């Protein structure tokens, strides 16, 4: 059997992106600061990977204001959820194969 490496999503190659996605698939919306706190990362790093996911159309961005403070929230799209699930399935398959070797 062929190793399904090509089934792994390139967009999730980065660890942080996969982590962002795993938070967004189980929550309706999640805001930037909570995400930063939860994933224990820097503003710049998180922002660039969020942008990457947005480009893939895996997430959508909602910009709003809480009083005068900007409050940006993120939501995963159907496409993103599907890609996430496929990626997990591929990971699972990889493990199974390595065990059979």
């Amino acid at each position, binding site marked *: 059997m062929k190793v399904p490496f090509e089934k792994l999503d390139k967009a999730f190659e980065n660890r942080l992106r996969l982590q962002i996605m795993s938070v967004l698939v*189980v*929550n309706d919306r*999640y*805001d930037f600061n909570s995400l930063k706190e*939860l*994933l224990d990362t820097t503003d710049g790093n998180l922002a660039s990977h969020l942008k990457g996911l947005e480009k893939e159309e895996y997430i959508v961005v909602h910009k709003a204001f809480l009083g005068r403070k900007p409050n940006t929230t993120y939501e995963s799209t159907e496409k993103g959820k599907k890609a996430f699930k496929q990626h997990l399935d591929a990971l699972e398959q990889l*493990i199974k194969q390595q065990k059979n070797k």
Partner: protein
Amino acid sequence: MKENEIQDELSTIRNLMERSSKFISLSGLSGILAGIYALIGAAIAYHFIYSKISEIPPDFDHDLTKAFFYDGDIHTATLFLLSLALVLLLASIGTGIYLTARKARQKGQPIWGNTSRALLFHLATPLVTGGLLILVFISRGYYGVIAPLCLIFYGLSLFSASSFTFTLVKYLGLCEIVLGLINACFPTYGLLFWAIGFGVLHIVYGTIMHFKYDR
């Protein structure tokens, strides 16, 4: 990617999904303590009511306006029982917040985040509704509905909040609702049902939580 790398990746994902969507820092010990407070409170209320009780009339069960046939001044009694309930509520909430905050610190989960806010909001809506409704009934003298309504609305609160925390909370909520409905058929035994629902069930729930998650 190596196998253990993938395993590691998967367990991080699982952990994040749980930590971001569920409040997993609820303390089992606080459940046990709340149950004990409730039992002590029920014992005090029992002594207070039944030390001044006269014979129970046979058709008593069907009269929702009187849960207990009380010989003393009904307003003093209501005031006393309400303050007792308030003290119990504050003690339970205080213990709960303290122990939960301690556990959240240990687990590195923020006590005041998206999840705990959602949990509290879903808990408070049915609870405040029930509380106000009960106060309305008390002011109109329907004492028999107090215990069943306490149990039912508390059960509904737990049920609605349970999607943000352990599944066990959902079952606790369902048990409280069932108990409240049974109690509604037998209003005479309000205090007994109240003690089972808020005392015994909390202790059982707290013990399971404690052994499953606290350690």
